[in-house]
């Protein structure tokens, strides 16, 4: 199952790339598949991974999460490689995730080297906050409010639901993809996957576009605000953290294109959050 998923997604990624590059480099693809086989075989041998009962399983989520994270980092100027900063966001973030609905998942929190004010999440536990927003969170209570909202997107599988809604998994599971070391067969399978790409819905690029360009729908964002608020409070951070950050941003005004541009209006989000202590 896992190998099949890897092959399916390999095909998706390859096809996404070939939309901008006409040249199809089979040797590189075969190498990637060999690597994928090595990884999945190891996991299988250890008996450590099981496909989800329905929808996108953990192996697919890793691939999607990694790829979307790469796109986010590429779009937002890379990561701030400051040890103190990355330790702070990871400690606060992982304190929160310990009491989330996915306490034992791998979680990584990074700061994007951009002065815009925004935060993003990608499947498989990736949370990113821009340098501009990080500067608005001088206390851990405020930082927790921001991170908890993004954590809620991941525990709620909001990005993955986009793919699932578009029938990506349904298209994928119909493929016959038992691994065979014969490269020609792999090529055949990849070509088969390639032909299924049209049915995969938005895929990686689509998820990236939703997260980074369009944003989730307002209902999803308000739900993440509420879940994040509850998580911060449960963990022991001041429950008013997110509201305070949003209020400060609203008061400072600024360029709407650069402040939470992928989220609903600040005014609407603030209105839905209760007034509570911020420290």
């Amino acid at each position: 199952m896992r190998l099949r998923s890897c092959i399916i997604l390999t095909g998706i990624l390859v096809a996404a790339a070939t939309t901008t590059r006409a040249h199809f480099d089979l040797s590189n693809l075969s190498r990637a598949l060999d690597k994928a086989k090595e990884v999945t075989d190891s996991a299988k041998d250890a008996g450590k991974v099981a496909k989800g009962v329905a929808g996108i399983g953990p192996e697919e989520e890793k691939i999607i999460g990694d790829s979307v994270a790469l796109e986010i980092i590429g779009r937002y100027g890379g990561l701030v490689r400051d040890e103190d900063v990355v330790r702070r966001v990871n400690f606060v973030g992982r304190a929160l995730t310990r009491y989330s609905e996915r306490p034992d998942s791998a979680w990584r929190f990074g700061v994007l080297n951009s002065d815009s004010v925004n935060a993003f999440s990608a499947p498989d536990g990736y949370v990113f906050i821009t340098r501009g927003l990080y500067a608005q969170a001088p206390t851990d209570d405020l930082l927790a409010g921001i991170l908890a909202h993004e954590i809620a997107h991941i525990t709620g599988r909001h990005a993955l639901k986009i793919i699932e809604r578009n029938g990506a998994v349904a298209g994928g599971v119909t493929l016959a993809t038992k691994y065979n070391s014969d490269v020609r067969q792999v090529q055949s399978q990849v070509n088969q996957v390639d032909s299924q790409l049209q049915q995969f819905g938005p895929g990686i690029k689509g998820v990236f576009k939703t997260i980074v360009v369009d944003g989730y729908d307002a209902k999803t964002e308000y739900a993440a605000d509420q879940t994040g608020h509850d998580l911060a409070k449960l963990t022991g951070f001041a429950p008013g953290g997110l509201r305070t950050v949003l209020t400060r941003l609203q008061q400072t005004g600024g360029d709407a294109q650069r402040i939470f541009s992928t989220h609903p209006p600040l005014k609407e989000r603030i209105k839905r959050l209760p007034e509570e202590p911020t420290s």
Partner: protein
Amino acid sequence: MKPRSLTPRWWLVALLLVAAGSVEAALAAGGTAFAKRLETKLLAEPRPLAAVSGKVGYATKLTVEEARGAWLRVSAGSAAGWVFSGNLSDTPPPEGTGADKLGLSASETTATAAARPLTPVADEYARRGNLGSASEDLNWLLRRSADITAADVEGFLQEQKKGEFQ
């Protein structure tokens, strides 16, 4: 006096109150809770460093016997003890063999999942998308994140008086 029927708005309020009550009840005495960690320790007393009186696995259904602040006394068969409410869920976790559907112990999950490099497919994706620099950054982040262990996070919680250490 003519009896007044409830307007749709009041019906909605009533429904929300019932729903809120049912959620509250789940993590209150007499309610039901579910273990959301791969392994949840049940403690002899309602405090974080108390002796361990039992352990339950992922998705175990628990009966809430008593609530004391953020701590719940729960039982499942012969296992019983106190647990911080943040370690339980009021809804059944996703089906599967464990959190993230991985049949691993908590320590294995943390170690292997956090330390992993980018998937080979994502590596290829980065190569084809001219995302080499982003790939280096992401691998750096994966390493830095893996440096922070579950024990480190527990130390942070204890020092900052968060979670069960509040």
